[in-house]
C-alpha cells in the first residue's frame, strides 16, 4: 500500500482547460475554419454487400459550387503490408479500402465517393447526383452464419491463420487462436460440478457525442496539414501517410479538442479522403460525419457468440475452464478476439483451461477498440457462470470470487504470471462497502456483483518542460486530452518539482512539436505520459543541480534535491521557483525533456455491485443503486478517476440493458440514430458510487495504474446476476432489453 504523503497528487485542482470548455471557447475540429475552406460530403453505400460496377461522377462535377469529386480510383494502390501502429497493427490495403471502397462495398455506410463544395448542402446535393451502379451480393451479419462453409465470402483471398499456419480454403475467418493451460479435459472429468452456457452479445458503439471530423489542407509544396478529432496524432499521421503513400514527414497532424473517443477515434476514416479532396481542389476541406455515418461507418465493438464452461470442486475451487469464442471483426480482419481470449479467465486462478477464439469477417462496419476491447463480452459469460457455481454449491457469490481470485504469481491462460495486482483488495473493499452491507428488500429486486479486468498498457510517451523566467513551467506533451489528462500529467510534474498544479501550463502539442507519443488509449495516459512528465522534471532537476553548482560555487554532487523539490547544499535550501528565477537572471534558461516506454501492463482490476428492480409485467429493469470499485494504483486527481469509473460504468449499463445494432432483413442497421440506439440518459441511471482502491503500481514513480477501461467490463455481468436474483431468470443475451427479458421470464415461468 502506498503511504507516502503528497502535496499535489491526490488533490482536486480545477483542470487547466476547464474555463475554455465551460465558455464554449475550446476549439474542436468542427469549429475550425480556414480561409477558403470547402465542405466535404461522403457518399456511402446503401447496401450491406455489393460489387461496385461503375461510378459516374460527371453530373456532380458539373454542379456550380463543386470543386472536387473523388472515388476509390483516386486512392493510391497500397501493398498488402501490415503497418505497426504502436498500439496494434493494421493491414494497409484494408485500411485504405475501409476509407474508400474499391471494387466492393462490404457494409452499409461504406464510403464510395466524396465531394468538396462551397457549402455542405451543395456537396450533399452533388453527392446524390453521383451514379453508382451496384451488383448486390448476398450478405451476412451474424457471426455463426458468417463462419458457415456456404457463407457469402467478403474477401475472396482470405484464409484462416492459426498462428502462422494458413488454411487452404478461403473463409470469413482470418484468425483462429488457441490457448491451453494444464489439462482441461482431465480436470473436467474430476470436477464435482460443471456449468456451461452459450452467450450472445450485440454489436455496440462507443457513442461519443462528437461525430468524426477533419480539416485537411494539402499545400502546393506537398505538405499536408490535418486538424482532426483523433485519440493519437502520431498514429493518425502514420495511417494517413501510409494510405496516401506520401512521406511521413510531409504530414502535420494537429489534434484539436476531442469530443470523446473510447477507442473509436484511433483508426482513420476521413483524413485521407479530406486530404485528396484538398489536393484536387487546391483548397482546405472540412468533412464531418453525420450521426448516422458515425453508427454505420465508424468502428463499433464486436458482437459475439460465446460458449463457456467452468468446472469446480465441491469446496468452490474452480479447477477447469473452457471457452469457445467467436467475435465480429466487421468488414475487415482484425477484431478484438485476442484480448477476448486472454480476458475470459483473467480474474480467476484456474489451473486447467483451454480457450479457442475466432475473428470473423461479416457485413458490418470494421470493428474497433471500445474501452477494454473484447473484455466486457467474456466477463458477461464468465461472471454469470461463477455466480451459478456459487449458487449450486450453496456458496456466497463474493466468497467464491475471493477463493479463486488471481493474485501475484497466478498464471494466466495465455501464459504470463501476474505481478502484484489488486483484485483481492477490490473484493475486500466490496465486502466492507456500505452498499454490500445494506440489505436490499422488496419484491422483484435483486443484487448482483461482478469482477473485471483490463491489461492497461505503457507504450511510448514524451514530455518537454520549458521553465519560464518566473519559475512557472510550460509543459508540452503529445497525449490528446479526452478527459482531463493535461491536468493529471501536470500534477505529476508539479509534485516532483515542488510546484502547484497551477504553476504548470500544460499544452498538447502537434506532431511537429511534441515528442513521439502513442495513442490516448489503453488506460495509458496518466500512467505513461505522467511518467514522462515526471522524468522530464527529474531531467530539469539534474540540469539545475549542475548549473546551481556554479552559482553556489560548489560541486553538483553536493546539491541534493528534496522530496519537496527543494535544492539544498551547505545548509542552504531553496525551492524550485526561487532557483529557477535565480538561474534565469544569471543567463541560464532551461528545458527538461524525457521519453519513456514502460512495458509492463498496469493490470487494472475492479469489482461492482448492482441493485435492480424488474417490472414483472414489462421486463423493464430499473437500476436502483450502483457501486464501482477499482484499483487505481494511486489516484492522481481523484475526481477524474471517479469520473472514469462512473462514465465507464454507465456505458456498461447501456451495453447491458438497451444498446445494440439492430439489423433488418437486408442486413442494414435499423437504428442509426441516438433516438433509437438508446444510450442511457440522465434519467436512466442512479448516482454511481465509487470506491478507489490504491495498491500502488511498482512500475510507476507514484504507483499509478490505468483506470479508464476496466469500469466498463463488469456492468453487463453484474446486472445479469442482479436480474437473476430478482427474477430467477438467467439472461444469456445482450442487451437485456425489456422485450427479451419479458420473453425470457415468460419462458422461465412456463418451464417451472
Amino acid at each position, binding site marked *: 500500500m502506498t503511504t507516502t504523503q503528497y502535496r499535489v497528487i491526490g488533490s482536486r485542482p480545477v483542470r487547466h482547460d476547464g474555463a475554455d470548455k465551460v465558455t464554449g471557447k475550446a476549439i474542436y475540429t468542427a469549429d475550425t475554419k480556414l480561409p477558403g475552406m470547402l465542405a466535404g460530403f461522403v457518399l456511402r453505400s446503401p447496401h450491406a454487400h455489393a460489387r461496385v460496377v461503375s461510378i459516374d461522377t460527371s453530373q456532380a462535377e458539373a454542379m456550380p459550387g463543386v470543386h472536387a469529386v473523388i472515388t476509390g480510383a483516386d486512392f493510391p494502390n497500397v501493398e498488402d503490408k501490415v503497418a505497426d501502429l504502436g498500439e496494434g497493427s493494421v493491414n494497409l490495403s484494408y485500411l485504405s479500402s475501409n476509407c474508400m471502397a474499391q471494387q466492393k462495398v462490404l457494409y452499409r455506410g461504406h464510403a464510395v465517393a466524396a465531394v468538396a463544395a462551397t457549402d455542405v448542402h451543395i456537396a450533399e446535393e452533388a453527392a446524390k447526383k453521383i451514379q453508382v451502379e451496384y451488383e448486390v451480393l448476398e450478405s451476412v451479419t451474424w457471426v455463426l452464419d458468417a463462419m458457415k462453409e456456404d457463407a457469402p465470402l467478403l474477401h475472396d483471398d482470405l484464409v484462416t491463420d492459426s498462428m502462422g499456419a494458413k488454411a487452404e480454403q478461403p473463409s470469413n475467418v482470418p484468425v483462429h487462436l488457441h490457448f491451453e493451460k494444464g489439462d482441461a479435459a482431465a480436470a473436467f472429468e474430476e470436477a464435482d460440478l460443471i456449468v456451461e452456457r452459450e452467450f450472445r452479445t450485440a454489436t455496440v458503439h462507443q457513442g461519443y457525442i462528437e461525430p468524426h471530423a477533419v480539416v485537411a489542407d494539402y499545400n502546393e509544396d506537398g505538405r499536408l496539414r490535418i486538424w482532426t478529432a483523433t485519440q493519437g496524432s502520431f498514429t493518425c499521421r502514420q495511417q494517413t501517410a501510409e494510405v496516401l503513400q506520401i512521406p511521413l514527414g510531409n504530414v502535420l497532424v494537429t489534434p484539436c479538442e476531442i469530443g470523446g473517443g473510447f477507442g473509436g477515434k484511433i483508426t482513420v476514416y476521413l483524413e485521407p479522403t479530406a486530404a485528396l479532396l484538398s489536393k484536387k481542389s487546391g483548397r482546405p476541406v472540412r468533412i464531418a460525419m453525420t450521426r448516422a455515418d458515425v453508427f454505420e461507418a465508424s468502428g463499433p465493438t464486436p458482437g459475439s457468440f460465446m460458449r463457456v464452461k467452468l468446472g469446480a470442486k465441491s469446496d468452490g475451487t474452480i479447477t477447469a475452464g473452457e471457452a469457445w469464442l467467436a467475435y465480429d471483426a466487421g468488414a475487415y480482419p482484425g477484431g478484438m478476439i485476442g484480448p477476448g481470449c486472454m480476458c475470459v479467465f483473467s480474474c480467476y486462478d484456474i489451473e486447467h483451461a483451454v480457450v479457442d477464439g475466432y475473428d470473423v469477417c461479416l457485413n458490418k462496419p470494421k470493428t474497433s477498440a471500445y474501452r477494454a476491447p473484447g473484455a466486457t463480452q467474456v466477463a458477461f459469460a464468465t461472471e454469470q457462470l461463477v455466480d451459478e457455481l456459487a449458487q449450486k454449491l450453496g456458496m456466497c457469490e463474493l466468497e467464491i470470487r475471493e477463493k479463486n481470485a488471481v493474485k501475484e504469481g497466478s498464471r494466466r491462460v495465455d501464459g504470463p504470471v501476474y505481478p502484484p495486482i489488486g483484485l483481492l483488495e477490490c473484493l475486500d473493499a466490496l465486502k466492507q462497502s456500505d452498499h454490500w452491507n445494506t440489505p436490499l428488500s422488496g419484491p422483484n429486486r435483486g443484487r448482483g456483483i461482478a469482477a473485471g479486468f483490463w491489461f492497461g498498457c505503457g507504450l511510448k510517451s514524451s514530455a518537454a518542460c520549458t521553465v519560464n523566467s518566473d519559475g512557472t513551467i510550460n509543459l508540452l506533451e503529445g497525449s490528446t486530452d479526452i478527459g482531463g489528462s493535461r491536468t493529471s500529467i501536470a500534477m505529476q510534474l508539479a509534485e516532483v518539482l515542488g510546484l502547484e498544479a497551477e504553476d504548470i501550463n500544460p499544452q498538447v502539442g502537434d506532431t511537429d512539436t511534441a515528442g513521439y507519443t502513442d495513442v490516448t488509449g489503453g488506460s495509458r495516459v496518466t500512467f505513461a505520459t505522467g511518467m514522462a512528465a515526471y522524468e522530464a522534471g527529474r531531467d530539469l532537476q539534474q540540469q539545475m543541480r549542475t548549473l546551481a553548482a556554479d552559482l553556489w560555487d560548489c560541486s553538483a554532487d553536493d546539491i541534493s534535491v528534496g522530496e519537496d523539490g527543494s535544492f539544498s547544499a551547505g545548509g542552504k535550501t531553496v525551492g524550485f521557483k526561487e532557483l529557477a528565477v535565480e538561474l534565469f537572471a544569471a543567463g541560464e534558461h532551461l528545458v527538461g525533456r524525457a521519453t519513456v516506454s514502460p512495458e509492463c501492463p498496469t493490470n487494472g482490476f475492479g469489482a461492482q455491485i448492482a441493485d435492480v428492480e424488474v417490472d414483472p*409485467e*414489462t421486463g423493464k429493469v430499473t437500476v436502483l443503486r450502483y457501486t464501482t470499485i477499482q484499483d487505481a494504483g494511486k489516484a492522481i486527481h481523484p475526481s477524474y478517476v471517479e469520473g472514469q469509473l462512473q462514465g465507464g460504468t454507465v456505458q456498461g449499463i447501456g451495453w447491458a440493458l*438497451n444498446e445494440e445494432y439492430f439489423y433488418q432483413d437486408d442486413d442494414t442497421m435499423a437504428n442509426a440514430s441516438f433516438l*433509437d440506439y*438508446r444510450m*442511457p*440518459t440522465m434519467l*436512466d441511471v442512479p448516482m454511481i458510487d465509487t470506491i478507489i482502491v490504491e495498491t500502488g503500481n511498482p512500475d510507476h514513480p507514484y504507483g499509478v495504474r490505468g483506470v479508464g477501461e476496466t469500469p466498463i467490463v463488469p456492468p453487463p455481468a453484474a446486472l445479469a446476476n442482479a436480474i437473476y436474483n430478482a427474477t430467477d431468470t438467467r439472461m444469456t443475451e445482450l442487451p437485456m432489453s425489456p422485450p427479451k427479458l*419479458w420473453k425470457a421470464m415468460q419462458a422461465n415461468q412456463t418451464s417451472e
Partner: protein
Amino acid sequence: MAPNSVSEVVSLLSEHGDRAKMLAGGTDIIVQLREGLREADVVIDIKKIEDITSFHYCEENGLSLGAAVACYHLYEHPQLSQLYGALADSTHIIGGWQIQSRASVGGNLCNASPAADSIPSLIALNAEAVIAGPEGQRTVAVQDFCTGPGRNVLENNELLVAIQIPAQGGECGSAYERFIPRNEMDIAVVGVGSWIRLSDDGTIAESRISLGAVAATPLFAEEASASLVGKEPTEENFAAAGELAKKIATPISDMRGTDEYRTHLVGVLVKRTLTTAALRAQN
C-alpha cells in the same frame, strides 16, 4: 414564409399544393426535410397567426387549442394540466425539455405517426380537429384524423387550425402512459390514453380508451371502452378492458418490440392508465 392569417395560409396552400409544408415547432418537419423523408418548395411558418398559437378554456366549450401551441403550455398550466391529465402526461414526455419548448400537439397530430404520444390522449378525450380550407372550416373527430403512417385527412389546400377538446367536469379523469425501454427520449413501443367519467355512485359512467403504436394509426378501443360502463373502477375490470383492447391491436415487429410483446403491453398499459384516470377522477 410567415403569413399573418389563416386565409393567407390557405391561399399559399392553394398555390403550392403539396410542395408547401407547415412549420409550427419544427421538431418533426425540419428533420424530415433534412433527411429527405418529406420534400417542400415552400415552408410556411404559422407561428405568427394568433388563432393558431393561442389557446383558451371555458366550462361550456372546453379547450380550444391552437394547432401551434407548444407542449409546455399544457403541462405547465395548473388548471389545464389537472383537467386534461392525459394531455399533460403526453406533452410532458414528447422529446426532452428542449423539444417540448417547440413541439406542438397540432404538429404531433398532423405528423400522424402511429406512435405519436398526444394522439391517444386526444382520442380518449374525444377531441375534434378544426380544419380550415378554401371553403371555410370543417371539423373531424381526432379518432378519424389519421389515415395511415404519416398521412391524415387534410387536403393539400387545408390546414389544421385548432383542436377542440370537450370540457371536463370534476368527475372526469384521464391519463396517458407509454412503454419505452429508457425513461425518456424514446418513441413509444405502445402508448395508451384512457379517460373515465364516474357516476355519483362511483361506478363508471363513461370511458374512452385509445391505443398508439399497435396499428397503422392510433386506435379508439370502442369495445373495451364500452365494456366498462356501469362497472366498478377495479383492477379486475380494468384488466378485463385491457384484454378486450388487445383484440384490436395489430402491431408490427420491429426494433422497438415484437408484435407479441406489443400486444401484451396493451393489456398492461390499459390497466395502468385506467387506474390512474380513475384515481384522478376520484380526486
